[in-house]
């Protein structure tokens, strides 16, 4: 309803003679900016999708309630693609050609995102912060990416284990699809570079019912560490099964997307001592002022949603997008926004390390930190870790 009202508002503005002045940018009027996206409101990623959108809407409503950006309120239009690439493409065409959006903000899922990028590049419509971690979007003029690529995440974890912990026998349980294989491929490469091999690898198919064979095999492999490149449900099943057969000698390590509170809740308290790579501060408990502000805004504008890493993502990256709009000034154009983003410089955000973009660098985050599950929470056990110029570097966390 609100979405429809937003559209009506834009329409009314047009009828009342407030139509864009000649030469103004598509999707921008005197007092509105229209953004859009295609998201998962159904299908396998419906939970992350609806949560990301809740975070986005909470921040946009907060901005609009505080006067908008340079006097313009932000309107939005979202469509459902159910994680289907063909639907995502159709939605993008609708957004660009029919609704005439200014920019596309936070769509989701590796395949749907990769499917729409060529079209958006061709139409010169900027895409901001798709929720996905494949490095294939690197170096595109109209695309800004968000978190640390999956291959970089695996590099960080592997090097940290080898260099800081002296581990050598490393295995992996991965989801049997493109997502899981991203992690497997990089782990192989990283270990081979050090003259090592993947000590054991087991796959879990999506929607598997029993992971006991995989866990039994991994437990028999005598590993120092076992990476889990899974989604929360099966990840939690692995923890339960490991607890059941008393598999304690091996450190279990959750990949970035798995390091999520849901994973711990589902595992029902057997996750103590598990390590993981985290990209975010604890959304529920972090005492950082910027995190408190996030929880307050979420609670005020989207009260039904508990803080979690998905709505934090939606909130954080919408905020970064709005920072870009702010920097682009009153005379807003698509190319102007891209130029403003690229020259914004390092700007503290109080949540993760400052994002800084340049003409060759459209990635917001390239690091993460290791956490251990203690008392049912992810507690940091390292500083920010990144691989820069081929070396693992560590910098202190914000306190």
């Amino acid at each position, binding site marked *: 309803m609100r979405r429809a009202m937003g559209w009506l508002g834009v329409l009314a503005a047009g009828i009342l003679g407030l139509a864009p002045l000649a030469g103004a940018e598509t999707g921008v009027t005197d007092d509105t900016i229209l953004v859009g996206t295609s998201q998962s409101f*159904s299908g396998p990623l419906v939970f992350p999708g609806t949560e990301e959108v809740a975070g986005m809407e909470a921040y946009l409503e907060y901005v609009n309630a505080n006067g908008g950006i340079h006097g313009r309120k932000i309107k939005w239009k979202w469509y459902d693609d159910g994680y289907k690439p063909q639907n995502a493409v159709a939605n993008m065409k609708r957004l660009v050609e029919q609704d005439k959006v200014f920019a596309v903000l936070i769509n989701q899922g590796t395949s749907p995102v990769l499917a729409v990028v060529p079209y958006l590049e061709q139409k010169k419509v900027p895409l901001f912060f798709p929720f996905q971690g494949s490095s294939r979007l690197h170096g595109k003029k109209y695309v800004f990416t968000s978190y640390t690529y999956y291959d970089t995440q695996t590099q960080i974890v592997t090097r940290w284990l080898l260099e800081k912990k002296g581990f050598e026998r490393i295995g992996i349980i991965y989801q*049997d699809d493109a997502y899981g294989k991203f992690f497997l491929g990089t782990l192989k490469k990283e270990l081979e570079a050090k003259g090592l091999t993947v000590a054991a690898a087991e796959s879990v198919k999506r929607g598997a*019912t029993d992971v006991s064979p995989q866990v039994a*095999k991994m437990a028999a492999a005598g590993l120092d560490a076992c990476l889990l490149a899974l989604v929360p449900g099966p990840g939690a*099943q692995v923890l339960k099964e490991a607890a059941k057969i008393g598999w304690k000698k091996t450190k279990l390590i959750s990949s970035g997307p798995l390091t999520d509170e849901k994973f711990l809740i*589902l595992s029902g308290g057997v996750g103590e001592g598990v390590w993981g790579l985290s990209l975010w501060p604890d959304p529920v408990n972090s005492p950082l002022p910027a995190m408190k502000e996030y929880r307050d805004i979420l609670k005020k504008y989207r009260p039904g949603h508990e803080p979690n890493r998905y709505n934090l993502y939606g909130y954080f990256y919408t905020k970064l997008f709005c920072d870009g709009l702010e920097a682009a000034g009153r005379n807003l154009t698509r190319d102007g926004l891209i130029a403003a983003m690229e020259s914004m410089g390092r700007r503290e955000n109080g949540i993760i390390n400052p994002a800084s973009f340049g003409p060759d660098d459209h990635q917001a985050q390239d690091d993460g930190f290791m956490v251990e599950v203690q008392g049912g929470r992810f507690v940091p056990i390292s500083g920010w870790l990144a691989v820069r110029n081929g070396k693992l570097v560590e910098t202190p966390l914000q306190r």
Partner: protein
Amino acid sequence: MFWQLVVSGLATGCIYALVALGLTLIYKATEHVNFAQGEMAMVGAFLGYTLYTDLHLPVSMAVAGAVVLSGVVGLVIQFVVIRPAADQPHFNVFIITMGLSIVLRSLAGLVWSHDEFPFPGLFPVRPVTFGPVVVTPLNLGTIAVAVGIMAGLFAFFRYTRHGVAMRAVCERPEAAQLMGVEVRRVFAAVWVLSAAVSGLAGALIAPVLNLSTHMGAVVIPAFAAAILGGWGSFPGAIAGGMALGVIENLAGGYLAGQIKNMVPFLVVLGVLVVRPQGFLGEKEIRKV
């Protein structure tokens, strides 16, 4: 490792067996193939979850409630969407149940969201060691409850008037009707029973799989189990389910990555080629 894999395979297999049993019940009585069986299990588990979290019932009561409420859901479904289409070709009813599965999943998403939830186990998960095998009471309890239900159903069909009536309708509806059996009432009862059994399966598997709207996918292995054991045979559904669970686990334990996912279905395929009626199915002979 072998026995370990067998025991946990049996626990999963029991769930397949229960859902396959639900499929078989409906098929035997009405010759309808109910594609929404998995979603009925999912809805049952969610109902149990609601009883547990919102009404604070103890787990056993919540599971019992889930079984009863699932039966009610089965009755409503039968009354609202199946009965009006009862005289149409079976293929139409199959498509209706396919649509029903999508509707149930979406409705469950609206009511409970598409999130995943931890489901309380009817039995504790603290492991117990028997020689080389570590099992959880949850595994054993699942097997025990499933076997108990199967034995109960067997007795019901064998020794009670209603059970015999149901079997009669399954065999030959027209003749049963002539003998004074209320066929329509029996059809409804079959749906209630089938939905209740599936609801129980849902509540038993939810602690292992986590509760989510995706749980309905269990209908696929259940189909495979029913075919493996002999489509339309009650003991076949049970044997097929157990066998499929064990085969899946052994393949996972001893074979390499990509192959293991295919094995259960290769076995089904093999059985269909060599013995099309399944383990325990009866050969259908049509006299012309």
